[in-house]
């Protein structure tokens, strides 16, 4: 890690000390991992537009600094789910958008004034994202959209959805897709909450004869897969979410020091507990090595792909493992949720235990990432 990145880390920590409050973290208990005030403060600081590549008109922040920013946000449990989505959304719009989208939408997203969410998955298509069936049919200079999307997280607080639609059902699935930026206050859109095991709120969104002008189309007609590939590229560029374990380890160490077993001993003096804590800390250093490496590749201008898959695969799988280890370590106490006044550190480990599974699913499942490593890194034949 270069020295300038460590200077930047100090700057981020100072920023978080000033802007991130305990109330903001507690407010995420309603299931929405977003704080409007924090989002605006990050944008005002120039870090949202900064994370957008310079060649697209963004701030072109050094990827190593971006990596440090995302690391620190996660280490401090900052509710910043909207940040990564905004960066991807703005990048897609600036790369493929028409004048209308670039002029009316991108600046609002970059300033943090408006939010965007992602409409890729559907009830019948998740990993097979190109199988989307939500229809967009041209009607003069307008489009009529019908269908439904799953996992449109943040839709209930967002202003726009990046919608992947089918415009030609007669051609192979990758060739009949078109993207739209859809204002969520358009008539015919319904948003329904989807409750999750981790208490985070996601949404199903329904589109019933939604009428949209052609100025909201993102990219060429039937060229949606090109736009999708851009989205995946930028998503990997801001490969956040790679440091999920440290808050869990911190809580586990705290518990292991405070708790007393029936024989009066402390768990922290138990070799099995110490072994698991050390193994988890090693995994965190591996995650850090991956993240710094992909950031360094990006700052040299190299395009990485499979490295991003490895990073995400390792981070999410090891995080799940750590949550299970430390939940077990606590025995029955580990089961207490934050609603119980006696729960250790507001039930932090228990909460992470319920959250962890989704990290191996969203943004590319572990199975898809293993396929990508097998094909792209090892050169094994394609299998399905």
């Amino acid at each position: 890690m270069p020295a300038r990145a460590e200077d930047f880390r100090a700057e981020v920590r100072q920023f978080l000390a000033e802007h991130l409050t305990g109330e903001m973290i507690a407010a995420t208990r309603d299931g929405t991992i977003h704080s409007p005030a924090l989002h605006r403060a990050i944008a005002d600081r120039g870090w949202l537009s900064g994370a957008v590549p310079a060649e697209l008109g963004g701030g072109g922040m050094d990827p190593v600094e971006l990596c440090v920013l995302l690391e620190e946000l996660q280490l401090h449990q900052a509710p910043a789910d909207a940040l990564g989505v905004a960066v991807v959304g703005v990048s897609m719009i600036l790369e493929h958008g028409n004048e209308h989208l670039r002029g009316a939408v991108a600046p609002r997203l970059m300033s943090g004034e408006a939010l965007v969410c992602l409409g890729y998955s559907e009830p019948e298509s998740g990993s097979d994202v190109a199988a989307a069936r939500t229809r967009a049919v041209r009607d003069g200079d307008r489009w009529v959209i019908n269908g439904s999307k799953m996992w449109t997280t943040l839709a209930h607080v967002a202003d726009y959805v990046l919608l992947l639609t089918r415009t030609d059902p007669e051609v192979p699935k990758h060739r009949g897709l078109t993207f739209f930026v859809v204002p969520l206050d358009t008539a015919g859109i319904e948003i329904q909450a989807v409750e999750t095991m981790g208490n985070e709120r996601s949404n199903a969104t329904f589109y019933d004869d939604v009428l949209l002008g052609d100025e909201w189309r993102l990219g060429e007609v039937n060229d949606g897969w090109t736009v999708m590939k851009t989205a995946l590229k930028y998503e990997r560029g801001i490969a956040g979410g790679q440091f999920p374990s440290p808050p869990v380890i911190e809580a586990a160490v705290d518990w292991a020091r405070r708790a007393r077993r029936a024989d009066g001993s402390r768990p922290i003096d138990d070799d099995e507990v110490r072994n698991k804590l050390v193994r988890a800390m090693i995994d965190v250093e591996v995650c850090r090595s991956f993240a710094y490496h992909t950031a360094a590749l990006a700052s040299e201008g190299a395009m990485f792909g499979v490295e991003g898959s490895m990073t995400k695969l390792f981070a999410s799988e090891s995080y799940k493992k750590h949550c299970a280890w430390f939940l077990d370590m606590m025995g029955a106490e580990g089961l207490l949720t934050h609603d119980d006044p006696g729960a250790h550190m507001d039930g932090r480990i228990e909460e992470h235990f319920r959250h962890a599974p989704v990290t191996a699913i969203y943004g590319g499942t572990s199975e898809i990432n293993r396929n990508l490593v097998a094909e792209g890194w090892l050169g094994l034949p394609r299998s399905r």
Partner: protein
Amino acid sequence: MAEAFGDLFAREATAEAVRAAEAGCGFDPDLWRKLAAAGAPQMAVGVADGGGGASLVDLAVVVHEWGRRIAPVPLVEHAVCARLLSDAGNGEPIRELAASVISGDLIATMAPGPIEPDSTARLVPAGAVADVVAARRGDDIVVARSRPPGAARPNTADLPLADRDLSGAETVASGAAAASAWDRALAEWRALMAVAYAGLAGEVLAMGVAYTKQRHQFGVPVGSFQAVQHGLADAATRSEGARLLAFRAVSAVDAGRADGARLASMALLFGAESARFAADRVLQYHGGYGYSAEYDVQLYYRRAAGWLLQLGEPAAEVARLADADLGPKAA
């Protein structure tokens, strides 16, 4: 440089050479002479002391190639001990000895474990072939020059492990200076072995990919089955993570950073575990042939276990990390 040494190892440290060394004590004297002539064992010793003046990171790049070929020469032991002697050797007798070590005329190693009351250092890595053995005795670093036994104690990985009598050892450093020099040398050893493990894992994975692409069962390549692909993908992911962590550790140790020893221990543990996992998956996906002596994967499988254990118990390595990060255990 990586390419030049990579070529040398690929040419000389073939699987046949590894097998031939296994018939002896796990050492290939020809390869050692060629490496010494090319300047590898002494490359990371200062120029003023007769070395090549390369950094630890440069050495690590060569060690990666050494690990890839599981080459039967004590490159890491010797290189680390040569650096230790060039730093610690102030007295006249040790200076001469150090010069012979740095030139590669004498092979040197370190005994990671304590010396027994009868002055024996047990199961010393490269002990079968080393002319010079450095060890810890009380608060001192001691060095013994004696005739190597030339025979190893038979072991899983066919490593040149042997017991050595260190009764004639002379003290070369004492007190706090000895402690910090020794700890630094061990950190270098761990970090470099972590890099060697990354080389081993990379090669064993390449073996697994080549075999599963070529081997057909049920009318298709074994490597087209998703169960096989996902096992190899997990192994590749862990091995790449291990490689990145190992080089981070080498850089930190080289720069004398405070977290160097911690990262070196972590990299060694994770590197060993990842390489063993990779060797296990690749052996498994070879089917019965993986278990046969004829295929090379078994050579890698055994060394993946042996390299770590010759440095001590993994649990002791974990305990050291735990003590540093969590504080010592209550009695």
